[in-house]
């Protein structure tokens, strides 16, 4: 029992840590590729020198982040066998394929062409070199697709049959066209763009304020970054909204727990804040906006949304007695934090965009001083977002098919998992500090000027 709980903590910690780097990889790879495309197509000699330096500047930040993402990703792949062997047995026929395809089609591509990109500046023509970073960006984003195909099955199983006590794949295409994939993938992709863009804005702000000789270059980049981030944020908003609407059919328990909606209602209100009483299955206190939840889900004033208590009763009927309710308090507040932080990012990006496009942004020193401190925002939103995805399917590891408690490796002792849990956490903390130190010192000392070299 304890090995189970510890394994869950270990997976949670290492996944969230891994997911700090993933969206930044998705976003910064495309951002760097856009900068290099600008370089290849730019006619002005002085600007070409500057843009090339900018490409290498953001490329270096991308590399530091990419390395962290890769090494922590291997840990996740190994985890499925190490701590969750019964999951691997039960699900291997389905889950293994996207994982293998991810390595075969995406990891090889991004790793190989990243190597060429780093060392191939003098060995390839400009256009081919630029193609390399686009292939890296494509590979990174393709890998996100495969892993979300795998994850979507856990949230909403499709295209399978149960044979000989395990889930087997009956329709590969159904796996790929799972409606859940589209929602998760678009949301993650746009979250990646917003993360990459927002970090770029923060870096630009620091450089504009503190590095006079590089100022003009970073003002130009900031102009691109604000638009890029805004596209990402609007995409996050739209895809998140559509995905939540689909959840009403695909995973109503998750949807109801977002909003701590205990009883089925039509029309359902939206709770802005709530004092959630999980034991009693109700909110002791709440401030609601009438109709709002129904409007968000159904685009109309009319429409039923099932409550947690009714869904629990349905689940008991279907799967036998047990608790089928996820951590409602955690879900409710994480969801609000995600939305709140996303909204804040949008305001910040909008204001920064106005300032950088229509004024001399260097006159707004306070704002520039503030922006670097806001860089953690996208990471907070990504982490709570991922928490919602994974906590929202509990107590299931694969909704309706296998419970998390049945999935853990039976040969593990609590002592073993304690040891690795502490080991991973300590090493991850150490590496985070070292990587952050390297990145910040690099940002401080690297100048982008018109001089060659």
């Amino acid at each position: 029992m304890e090995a189970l709980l510890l394994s869950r903590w270990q997976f949670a910690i290492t996944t969230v840590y891994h997911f700090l780097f993933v969206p930044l990889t998705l976003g910064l790879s495309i951002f760097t590729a856009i900068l290099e495309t600008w370089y290849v197509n730019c006619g002005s000699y002085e600007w070409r020198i500057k843009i090339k330096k900018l490409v290498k500047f953001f490329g270096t930040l991308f590399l530091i982040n990419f390395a962290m993402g890769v090494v922590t990703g291997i840990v996740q792949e190994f985890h499925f066998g190490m701590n969750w062997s019964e999951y691997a047995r039960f699900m291997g026929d389905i889950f293994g394929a996207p994982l293998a395809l991810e390595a075969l089609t995406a990891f090889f591509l991004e790793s190989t062409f990243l190597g060429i990109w780093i060392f191939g500046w003098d060995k390839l023509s400009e256009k081919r070199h630029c193609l390399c970073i686009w292939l890296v960006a494509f590979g990174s984003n393709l890998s996100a697709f495969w892993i979300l195909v795998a994850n979507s099955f856990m949230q909403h199983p499709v295209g399978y049959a149960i044979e000989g006590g395990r889930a087997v794949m009956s329709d590969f295409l159904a796996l790929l066209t799972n409606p859940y994939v589209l929602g998760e993938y678009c949301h993650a992709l746009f979250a990646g763009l917003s993360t990459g863009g927002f970090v770029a804005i923060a870096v630009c702000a620091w450089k504009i304020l503190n590095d006079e000789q590089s100022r003009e270059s970073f003002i130009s980049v900031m102009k691109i970054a604000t638009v890029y981030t805004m596209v990402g944020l609007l995409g996050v908003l739209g895809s998140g909204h559509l995905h939540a609407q689909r959840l009403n059919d695909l995973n109503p328990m998750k949807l109801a727990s977002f909003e701590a909606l205990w009883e089925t209602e039509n029309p359902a209100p939206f709770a802005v804040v709530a004092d959630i009483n999980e034991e009693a299955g109700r909110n002791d206190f709440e401030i609601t906006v009438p109709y709002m939840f129904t409007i968000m889900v159904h685009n109309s004033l009319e429409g039923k949304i099932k409550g947690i208590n009714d869904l629990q009763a349905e689940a008991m009927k279907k799967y036998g007695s047990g608790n089928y309710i996820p951590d409602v308090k955690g879900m409710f507040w994480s969801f609000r934090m995600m939305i709140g932080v996303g909204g804040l990012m949008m305001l910040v990006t909008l204001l920064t965009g106005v300032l950088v496009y229509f004024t001399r942004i260097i006159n707004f020193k306070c704002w520039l001083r503030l922006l670097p401190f806001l860089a953690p925002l996208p990471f907070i939103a990504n982490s709570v977002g991922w928490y919602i995805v994974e906590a929202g399917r509990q107590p299931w590891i694969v909704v309706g098919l296998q419970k998390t408690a049945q999935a853990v490796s039976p040969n593990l002792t609590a002592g073993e998992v304690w040891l690795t849990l502490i080991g991973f956490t300590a090493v991850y903390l150490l590496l985070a500090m070292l990587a952050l130190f390297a990145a910040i010192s690099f940002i401080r000392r690297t100048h982008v000027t018109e001089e060659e070299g």
Partner: protein
Amino acid sequence: MDLNVLWFVLIIVLFTGFFVLEGFDYGVGMLLIGRKEYDRSMMIRAIGPVWDGNEVWMITAGGAMFAAFPHVYATMFSTFYFALFLMLLGLIFRGVAFELRGKYPSSDWRLGWDGAIVFGSLVPALLWGVAVTNLLQGLPIDAYMHYAGNFGDLLSPYTILGGLTFIFVFIFHGASFLMLRLGDEGLLLDLKRKSIKFGVIAAILYVGLMAMSIVSTDIMSKGFFGLSSFACGALCFVMAINAMYQGRAIAAFALTSMAIASTVVQFFVALFPRLMVSSLNPEWSLTIYNAASTPHTLMIMTVAAVIFVPLVLFYQAWTYRLFKARVMPSDLKHY
């Protein structure tokens, strides 16, 4: 040939790719011990453009194992729980070190990360050797495919010899790769002298491992095939030492690669049709049939492998061609 056998062959291909390619990366990593900063930078620069792509062979082999033989994946990874934890720590430090060592202008910073590369090359090399010999020897696996032992049970004179052999084989292989890639005469001369010594140690350990395998495993039950690839590997090492001595770098590298490939083939041939041997009851061994995915999944994966494995080989080969020029001191500006 049914799909299960085909996937057995494909797993051999992936592991061969991994051990041959990542083998020299591990070797180069271990060769950094006791070297001065200039040497270290040159040696790391030699594998710089390719190590990351090489590591993906391991990730792909693991993923393919998951897809094709999920029970093996489940049993193997939970069996080697603590060993894999150590290996992951090594791989984490190593992967980050390659990117970070050049990102801060300080010799101490670089020295620290180079130490991490040594650790991250030595530990996986050792553990792969321990794992492979354990798999050959058999593990206490019960009727439910669960490991019924602990980390200590994985260590025995035979498996530790396996670990040591892997370390020196990779060091020799890494040295022969560097002989092909470095452009600094002084460094080459020094490496050549050392690599012959390492080659001799590797060959002796390898023959010792072969002898102990006859005693400790059921490798001879396969008759002639039981030992032929092993013998071929040993022969390759001896010839590689000779080629190195005569200064034929290409031949030396080709021979160490062949030796490693033969060893991988030998390992799987000895296991066939099993993938994990139960030492408690032969009936409880995991085979390519009782541990496999369904034909449907194997078919899909076969189509993907037939398309993408050649494609990967093609663009990785192109990478090696692109970076075929020897690494010169002037190349170090990237770091």
